[in-house]
């Protein structure tokens, strides 16, 4: 039993290699990489969750007689900085992954660290924004603008997004440590990068639908 264990590939908890030689399978547009495919499908389902939330937001907004003016609550400058931080972090991540693929480890390390840093900055900014929002009197079930739905939806949707950023930061840090120990494949890092960019993608929609429209 001991000996067999050692034969297993690193991620094969189950005793089957993740990728038995590729020629064994019928060629398909989807078969290039199994893990990546699954990541895409996961992203679709997560995107649909946020899609449903934003659809709900729009619906509730349509059935409310009025909706608060967002510029009385949020600062355009602050919002712009938040967006820039998140979009940049996703750029850094892409550059880092590219560096990794080309074997430029120093470039990878630098940009990867900056990515995580940006994520933390974004989280801090969001926490500050929530504090500001709560300070104005907004709660899940009431707010000073007379549309309790607005603050409820705001907390729920940005909270869900923030939670995704947080998990992203944790995953990236964890993988980063594993990478330092040499225990993680390039592919896993690439997948983490996909997830990170996805979190960014969601923000693009949240920004437009909740803050700007």
């Amino acid at each position: 039993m001991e000996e067999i264990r050692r034969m297993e590939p690193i991620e094969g908890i189950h005793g089957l290699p993740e990728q038995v030689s590729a020629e064994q399978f019928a060629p398909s547009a989807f078969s290039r990489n199994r893990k990546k495919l699954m990541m895409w499908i996961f992203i679709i389902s997560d995107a649909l969750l946020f899609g449903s939330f934003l659809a709900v937001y729009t619906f509730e907004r349509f059935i409310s007689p009025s909706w608060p003016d967002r510029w009385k609550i949020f600062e355009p400058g602050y919002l712009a900085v938040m967006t820039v931080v998140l979009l940049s972090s996703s750029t850094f991540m892409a550059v880092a992954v590219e560096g990794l693929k080309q074997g430029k480890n120093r470039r990878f390390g630098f940009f990867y660290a900056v990515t995580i840093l940006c994520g933390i900055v974004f989280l801090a900014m969001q926490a500050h924004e929530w504090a500001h929002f709560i300070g104005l009197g907004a709660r899940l079930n009431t707010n000073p603008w007379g549309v309790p739905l607005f603050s409820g939806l705001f907390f729920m949707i940005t909270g869900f997004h923030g939670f995704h950023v947080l998990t992203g930061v944790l995953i990236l840090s964890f993988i980063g440590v594993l990478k330092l120990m040499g225990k993680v494949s390039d592919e896993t890092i690439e997948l983490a990068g996909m997830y990170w960019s996805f979190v960014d993608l969601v923000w693009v929609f949240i920004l437009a639908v909740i803050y700007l429209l």
Partner: protein
Amino acid sequence: MENLGSHTQEPIVSPKTFILVWVLLMILTGFEIFAAYKGIPWKNELILALMLAQAYLVSFYFMHLRFEKFPLILSVVLGVLLTVGLLCALIIWDGIHIIQLSR
């Protein structure tokens, strides 16, 4: 074992491309927030268009959707956009009716 399942056939993207995409994203963001803040005419349509442009850049470049094969691109884009679009469109259609009734 490290490269089991890794696949390096993907074309290499130069940092220049990423910088260009980043610059574009910044411009789009700036314009979007400006439009919303100043409340220019057609602002909602504009914001939605800019939002989609940003989403395109992020998903196609940063998430490398551009390098996937066409059927996958189609499934991802259609799967998400159609499903959310339908959900949105149909329940908002109903929402408009609800608000009309309550007036």
